[in-house]
């Protein structure tokens, strides 16, 4: 498998350089880490909002660093949670005295490393470190038999709403409240046509035939919850949308994300979006705004995900307030 890389083991390091080189006005890199923070971090008196996770999901998370969104983003190795010491450095660098909220996607590695990092940061003098865990993947049963549901694309809406509220000077309880509100009202589900290829392994993570698809995949090239035969885009759009709607049960205006997994052309995402929107309207919902594109990817995997967030006035206003984060465009 061919990739635009130098030494694969240097990929994350070089990528982080490349991100900061693209957005030097907004971002800087913390020395000797793979952490990117806002250039003006810590913003005194503002609650810091940070996130992080394995690499391979770009533009997640670094693309969401900017005024009105994230203060910091930590990049782990590909699909591997960042280590606790880097996370702790990020928390410290983004603490303007009003506390730091960590937005964590629900994976045991991420949760455990963020937990450890919070302890370390508190020992280093950060007053308050809060954590919210995003678990929007409705494909996964939330039962005693799993580690809870995974966190996927809904996380981006958490970043935006929490980041916007923090930017306005809200205190940490308020920021946590809004983050939890998004988490409670968002659901996602994804599918794959192909496996991704990780730089180190250089081969597909899973084998899949030319007439098969995986339904209910995560963002790490894990197999999905079900393998089915290849069906048309409309059938896929219906399956994903209906399962998300069943879970989220929205009632009025919704925010929608039709996300590409990295290897799928945007034309196909729009074909999917057409049917997603039809279903929403059929269900009496009002799509308030829609994002179509590659927002939280799985390297070069072909496939898509559908995310739906049930909105109220507060969330609409927060989603729409300005941000300089390069990967998020407001309505």
């Amino acid at each position, binding site marked *: 498998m061919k990739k635009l890389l130098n030494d694969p083991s240097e990929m994350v390091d070089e990528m982080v350089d490349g991100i900061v080189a693209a957005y030097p006005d907004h971002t800087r890199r913390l020395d000797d880490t793979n952490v990117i923070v806002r250039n003006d971090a810590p913003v005194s008196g503002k609650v810091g909002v940070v996130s992080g996770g394995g690499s391979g999901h770009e533009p997640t998370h670094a693309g969401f660093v900017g005024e009105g969104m994230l203060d910091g983003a930590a990049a782990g190795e590909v699909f591997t949670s960042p280590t606790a010491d880097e996370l702790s450095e990020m928390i410290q660098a983004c603490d303007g005295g009003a506390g730091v909220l960590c937005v964590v996607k629900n994976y*045991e590695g991420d949760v455990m490393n963020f937990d450890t990092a919070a302890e370390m940061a508190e020992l280093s003098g950060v007053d308050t470190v809060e954590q919210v865990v995003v678990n929007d993947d409705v494909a996964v049963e939330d039962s*005693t038999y799993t580690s809870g549901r995974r966190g996927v694309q809904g996380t981006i809406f958490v970043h935006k709403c929490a980041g916007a509220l923090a930017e306005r000077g809200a205190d940490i309880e308020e920021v946590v409240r809004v983050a939890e509100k998004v988490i409670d009202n968002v659901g996602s589900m994804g599918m794959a046509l192909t496996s991704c290829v990780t730089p*180190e392994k250089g081969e597909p993570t899973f084998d899949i035939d030319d007439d098969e698809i995986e339904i209910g995949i995560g963002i790490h090239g894990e197999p999905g919850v079900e393998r089915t035969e290849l069906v048309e885009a409309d059938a896929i759009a219906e399956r994903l949308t209906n399962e998300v709607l069943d879970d989220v049960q929205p009632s009025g205006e919704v925010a929608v994300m039709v996300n590409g997994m990295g290897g799928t052309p945007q034309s196909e995402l729009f074909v999917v979006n057409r049917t997603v929107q039809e279903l929403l309207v059929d269900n009496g919902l009002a799509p308030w705004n829609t994002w179509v594109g590659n927002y939280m990817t799985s390297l070069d995997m072909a496939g898509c995900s559908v995310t739906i967030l049930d909105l109220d006035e507060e969330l609409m206003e927060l989603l729409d307030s300005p941000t300089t984060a390069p990967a998020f465009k407001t309505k």
Partner: protein
Amino acid sequence: MDRADRQHDAVLAAIRNVAARLAEEKDYLTELDSAIGDADHGTNMNRGFEAVLENIETKQDDDVADIVKDVGMTLISEVGGAAGPLYGGSMLHASEQLEDGLTRESTVAFGEAYLEKLRDRGGASLGDKTMVDAVTPAVHTYKKSIEEDDLPPQEALAKAVDAARRGVEFTVPIRANKGRASYLGWRSVGHRDPGATSTLFMLEALLETAEHHLDEEVMEES
């Protein structure tokens, strides 16, 4: 060479052996993680132990407990993912038990502390198809072999390795309830757990080291 020096050498040798074994098994572990996880376990462990190897060059004079502690910290800051805090955190926590060196008692205590931290941090129970399934039988068997059966350490360790191997095989036919593999539900059945397997490899490397570097004398109570 006195007892402390021999123990010191044994620990360094053990670390090198473990690192070499994980380097060898890197692709196999990643292969296992491809089937039910995200295809990084071999790379993660290997990256961690490469850093450990570099670090111990500068820690040649530390005592046994400090060296193990340092290994734990390095794993925490280099491995990432689920394996980093689990392996690193457990080792860091358990290292305290070795403050008076390697003895029959201290190695049992190390194993127990390691298992305790592993279960605390990860929240997994036996049978959840995780590294807990390899560590638990190994620690239980080692403890019984030393405390009840009064076996020599190498023999106890050999039994522990055998126990871990059964634990690894046990992960194959069961459903995962923790970790990434749990998202697969029933589809996880039939696959060997990567973390349990890397645990077994580490124990095998320890046993190999023990056969060359440890005898009963070295581990006698001082």
